[in-house]
């Protein structure tokens, strides 16, 4: 079977899998951003117990394997009465896992906004919430964009593991094709290329564009 024939036969499955990967990635990225923001800000809270909760979350998800986390959420949580659909379990777990890494990026970026900005915001009598939301976070956002670009690529690659809880993503389809045909080189080779194209020509340029746009908005473009 030539590679063209291979694509002809299995193209549809691979495209379907790719779309599922895109969906998993986009949702996981949203979960990661939200979780990182909440946990990162909690880590900076003056109340010790609030910081403690964030630390537990970060340690738990950073310190254990994503695959084990996926199995836990999908196979073990139902034993405790929490059943999630595999699609939801997939992006939620991937998002929470990388959100734990993102939390450190948020915390670090917020902490690196110059002290003078906090003081100027206080001198203008802005409330604590507005100081954070209007003055500090927009500046922290610009600082943390480059490392978030890396993390986004990691999230994309991390979604490949949802295949192991039977979410029909790109990796899942590639495995299906492989076990039906033993055309390992073609199946996994195509998956490899598709992941690369998606990371290199979609995610990364998008993040770069965001960096440039934000830089321009503060007059540094």
């Amino acid at each position, binding site marked *: 079977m030539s590679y063209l024939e291979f694509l002809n036969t299995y193209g549809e499955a691979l495209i379907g899998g790719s779309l599922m990967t895109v969906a998993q990635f986009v949702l996981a990225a949203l979960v990661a951003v939200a979780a990182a923001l909440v946990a990162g800000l909690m880590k900076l809270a003056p109340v010790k117990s609030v910081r403690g909760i964030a630390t537990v979350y970060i340690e738990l998800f950073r310190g254990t394997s994503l695959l084990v986390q996926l199995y836990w959420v999908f196979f073990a949580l139902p034993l405790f009465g929490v059943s999630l659909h595999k699609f939801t379990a997939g992006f939620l777990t991937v998002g929470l896992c990388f959100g734990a890494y993102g939390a450190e990026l948020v915390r670090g970026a917020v902490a690196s906004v110059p002290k*003078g900005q906090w*003081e*100027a915001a206080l*001198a203008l009598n*802005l*409330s604590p919430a507005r100081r954070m939301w*209007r003055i500090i976070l927009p*500046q922290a956002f610009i600082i943390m964009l480059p490392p978030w670009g890396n993390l986004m690529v990691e999230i994309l690659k991390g979604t490949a593991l949802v295949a192991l809880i039977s979410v029909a993503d790109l990796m899942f389809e590639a495995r299906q094709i492989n076990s039906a045909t033993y055309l390992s080189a073609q199946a996994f080779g195509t998956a490899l290329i598709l992941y690369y194209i998606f990371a290199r020509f979609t995610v990364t340029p998008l993040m770069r564009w965001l960096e440039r746009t934000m830089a321009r908005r503060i*007059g540094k473009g």
Partner: protein
Amino acid sequence: MTEDMTQYPLRLEGDDAPMIRFQNVTKKYGDLTVLDRLDLDVAAGEMVTIIGPSGSGKTTVLRMLMTLEQIDAGVIYVDGEPLTHMEKGGRLVRGDAQHLRRMRGKIGMCFQHFNLFPHMTALGNCMEGPVQVLGLSKREAEERALELLDMVGMAEKRDEHPSRLSGGQQQRVAIARALAMRPQVMLFDEVTSALDPEVISEVTSVIRALADQHQLTMLMVTHQMGFAKEISDRVVFFYDGSIEEQGTPDKLFDSPDKERTQQFLSAVLEAT
């Protein structure tokens, strides 16, 4: 440290009540006493300049007034009311967040490094407080901001971000930003120290105009002795955490009583 708070009045009353009063104010960083039982009054509309060697506590005076630093003892009053404290059951207790927010509205501050918000234009910087804190409409806030930017000669640069402005221009926007909150007291913390010599006069002339035309109470820390002499109603010389000498600019600069004042002034004059 427990302090007998009954020695401090709950508020300052009478026509001669100062706009700002430091009563017995002490500030420490660990073991280091930065300000030692400071007493200082500033009358409404008065322009007071604080000079002194670095580490003498002069910037701390402004930072405590802006509530950027907590005090360890004593009470600061602004506009007749305690700033650092509030009345509760007939006695003074530490001011809570709500009290501090209310009192802070009376005070504006400009910083050595301007601290403009880099993600906002000059206009945006000046509208932020009025819209977010005072609750002005966008239109009202813009009108007020433009008026002030015009006053400091920055109306043309209204849409520029701080990174596109020179130090002198940034500092003028920062002054407009602080004034947009309509404070009764303005604090200037070494506002020309980070500027290139050729742009210092842009900023000093704005402050001079403010002193001439407005009834603001102003407290300034500066190393520009000529400017201090010309503009101040009173000059206060700080040394090692307390006031060594104070008086009219003519008196303090031309015939200071204390030896340390003489030494400081001759050292500064030699350097410039």
